């Protein structure tokens, strides 16, 4: 072992480093998988579209469109950020509107 360390330092360091990283990442992944179900709902984010949010929260997109008053002219490929700019409301207010609509839809189901 001593000779191995003396003549092949890089090999030993490389092995130890790779092994440690593999073990740490696997442990972290196992923890993340274990706690996964509690955090399943994604927080609303500016890049999401209405249809994306509807899918993510498993509610009908129409319900969300009605909530933001865009049921007649559904915005295609518009992000939440763009919608809040169009509606002249802060992003947080749009999020609240949508979350209320999602909660109502879920309660109705």
């Amino acid at each position: 072992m001593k000779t191995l360390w003396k003549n092949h330092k890089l090999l030993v360091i490389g092995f130890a480093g790779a092994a440690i990283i593999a073990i740490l990442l696997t442990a972290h992944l196992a923890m993340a998988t274990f706690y996964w179900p509690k955090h399943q709902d994604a927080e609303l984010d500016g890049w999401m579209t209405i249809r994306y949010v509807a899918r993510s929260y498993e509610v009908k997109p129409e319900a969300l469109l009605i909530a933001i008053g865009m049921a007649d002219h559904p915005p295609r490929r518009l992000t939440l950020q763009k919608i809040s700019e169009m509606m002249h409301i802060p992003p947080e207010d749009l999020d609240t509107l949508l979350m209320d609509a999602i909660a109502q839809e879920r309660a109705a189901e």
Partner: protein
Amino acid sequence: MTDSILALVPTYGLPLLFIIGVLAAIGIPLPSTLTIMAVGAFVAGGDLNLVSAFATALIAAVTGDQIGYQIGLHAGNQVEARLGRKPSSAAKIAQAKKFIDKFGGVGVFLTRWLLAPIGPTTNIVCGASDMRWIRFSLWGVIGEITWVSIYLSIGYIFHGDLEALASMLGEASWALIAGIAAIFLGKRMVKVLRTLKHEKAVE
């Protein structure tokens, strides 16, 4: 930065997906996996079209791979011309080439999707070690089809926190890469130990 890139996908659609795909395959650190998954979700929601999204992502990834290979090919020839003058370096280069020749095909395939984080480096190494272009390209295309199919499907099927899922999958890839490296280096260590033991016994 991830959020602002994702925000551009619904707005600019497929041309942007193409640019991200090419740059990521060359090795620019962009969240390509998450982007593909988000595209899958946008397709599922009806914001993007499946066939054109699939084709765009695939062509982008293959294009980026080819650019990486060409960079490796040209840089490799120059490096080899310089280093190859020394016999010891020339022997090492020959050894590396033999290794690529043996595992290169499967290596290219697996580094497209399962070990994706080291994909861009692999492209350059394959080019630099003169891996046959047709072999690199065939395995590369099959690998990229696998990659796009898997991540588009995950985005299409999955409901929930895509960002968290993408970072978990990335971590799993790195864990695998580190694990494979540990096994490979561990084997080398055992081999060296055996040789040392043998030498001692002879003495």
